[in-house]
């Protein structure tokens, strides 16, 4: 008699868990790069690392061998999700003159395109991250990179972008685009990275 409850519980668990299936598919990213997934089921692990590679995991049977899904199968299963992905963030790299918050002529010319994209996407998730090269001391460069970021922020606001939609970061000389030794002048590192999401 006392086993009836146990049996009922077990059956209930099997029914509930038995209904659930997980399918995982690895696909190329927007740049064509293929990453890797580790799928762990009840202590057993499988690795997917091929484009289109897929595995299905139910609750009762051991996981099946991975298979490669065709584009048609991927589209039929994930079409409405894939069609509604947000556009990937766009990054503009704006360069500055040496020890200055003045944009180079070429970079100043890129701003209208950035503002156009912000308006088209109706974006309220904009990041301006200031950077410097390795000339001068670190504290000074952190402050200079903040001034650069604020300069771009001001220019965007002048063009009608809402202030509350812009996040400002300053990296100083800590995150160079082109790594150099200390005190090396590198124009490509004197920059603001403007990310439009």
């Amino acid at each position, binding site marked *: 008699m006392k086993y009836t409850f146990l049996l009922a519980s077990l059956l209930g668990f099997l029914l509930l*868990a038995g209904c659930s299936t997980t399918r995982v598919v690895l696909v190329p990213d927007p740049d064509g790069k293929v990453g890797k997934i580790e799928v762990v089921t009840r202590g057993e692990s499988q690795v997917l690392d091929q484009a289109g590679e897929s595995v299905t995991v139910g609750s009762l049977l051991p996981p099946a061998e991975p298979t490669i899904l065709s584009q048609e199968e991927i589209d039929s299963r994930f079409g409405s999700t894939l069609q509604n992905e947000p556009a990937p963030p766009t990054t503009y790299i704006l360069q500055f003159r040496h020890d200055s918050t003045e944009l180079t002529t070429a970079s100043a010319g890129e701003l209208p395109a950035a503002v156009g994209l912000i308006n088209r996407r109706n974006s309220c*998730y904009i990041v301006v991250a200031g950077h410097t090269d390795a000339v001068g001391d670190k504290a000074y460069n952190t402050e200079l990179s903040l001034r650069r970021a604020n300069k771009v922020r001001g220019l965007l606001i002048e063009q009608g972008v809402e202030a509350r939609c812009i996040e400002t970061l300053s990296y100083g000389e800590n995150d160079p685009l082109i790594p150099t030794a200390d005190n090396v002048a590198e124009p490509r590192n004197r920059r603001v990275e403007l990310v439009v999401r």
Partner: protein
Amino acid sequence: MNRLIQILFFSLMCLLLTTPLLAEKSAYIGKVAKVSPDAMILRDGQTLVANKNLEIFANDLFQTGPTGTLGIIFRDGTILTIGPSSEFHIRDYVFVPLEKKTSFLGRMRQGSLSYISGAMGRMNPDSVRIETPTAYLGLRGTKVLVQVD
């Protein structure tokens, strides 16, 4: 005069002690970038309609109806799209790039999703994990689709 200094000191201490808490609370982890109705966000017992540019917080639960989709861009640039008839719980999200502290933990209860990794995936690939009712997924980049029936 001493009294005044005391009061000022205590006020300052209170301010210093509470400021980090306030900062913690207001730190959103991403924003809604694209949405088709109906899509909802459950937070602190409230149900919010997911509008474009709505801020997202850790512990939010995303829910979509049969015609709904919800695309989110996170702080680190991770792009997560929830398909129709889906339920996804963002259980943990940490992104402190200067200290290399990162974590992404989600639970996919049903439906489908697309995940495209951001800076976190490049910096610390082991920190991105999704649980489903039958599996535990370690996402080492860069684009992954998951469907739970």
